[in-house]
């Protein structure tokens, strides 16, 4: 398999489909990254809340 494009300019142009190809890839990668953030945030919040609850329980004792 060989690289199909002869120049960076040709690669970016995507044979006149650039306006469709790059937004597609861009949107997909954006959502990929966002999901990673959301997942880690969900876990971090849940861990923080669980720690808080533990502290409150211990204080009650």
């Amino acid at each position: 398999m060989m690289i199909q494009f002869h120049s960076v300019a040709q690669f970016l142009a995507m044979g006149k489909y650039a306006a469709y190809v790059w937004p597609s890839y861009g949107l997909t990668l954006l959502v990929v990254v966002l999901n990673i953030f959301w997942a880690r945030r969900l876990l971090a919040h849940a861990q923080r809340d669980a720690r808080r609850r533990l502290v409150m329980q211990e204080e009650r004792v």
Partner: protein
Amino acid sequence: MTWTWFHRLGSPPYVYRLAGRLTPWFGWSAAVLIVAGLYGGLVLAPPDYQQGDGFRIIYVHVPTAWLSLMVYTYMGIAAAVGLIWRIKVAHAVAAACAPVGASFTAVALATGSLFSKPMWGTWWVWTPRLTSELLLLFLYMGYMGLRASFDDTQRADRASAVLAVVGIVNVPIVHYSVVWWNDLHQASSVTLTGKDTMATSMLVPLLVSMLGFTLYFGALLLVRLRGEILRRERAAAWIREALA
């Protein structure tokens, strides 16, 4: 035959720890495969005879569409297991799946539009496949909306589980719509045998990309699952150790 491994999967602390250990494996292998698949699709695959370089969109469209269906299937099965056997971990899996599935359904629809506009001159057609995929997005949103409307997590789990199971009927409709009806969307081209297979140089990056996205979903699920488990285990003793 020992079924202990299966029973352990119903134990929140066990799953919490296991998920934590597995996440890096899923995450990094996903990253490698996605980069390799997208590079192969963008740079190495030859341009299509009819669709030129525009066809390269399929390297993100097909994996995200695949994810949208696969994630709903997991969600529905987990919901059914949670409903029938009252297993909290199963409900946690279903809850973890939904936002991921919904976002990738939206991406599949968007990339599909971006593909169909240059190729067939229209952003949208009300064909069975596109319509049922749009309905899939509404099902995800309804699921998340129903969850959010309950204050009690257990009620939310069980009610949304019924909805998830009822909605499963849509998944085969989306998949087989191009077989049952004449559709603008092309019939299945991701086959390994038969007359309509794609050229290997085009197919391999697609398969790599699909596998990469699947593993990526696995990593996301593992992280979200841990969060959902913690949310459901208010006063459990194991949490103290697990968070230390």
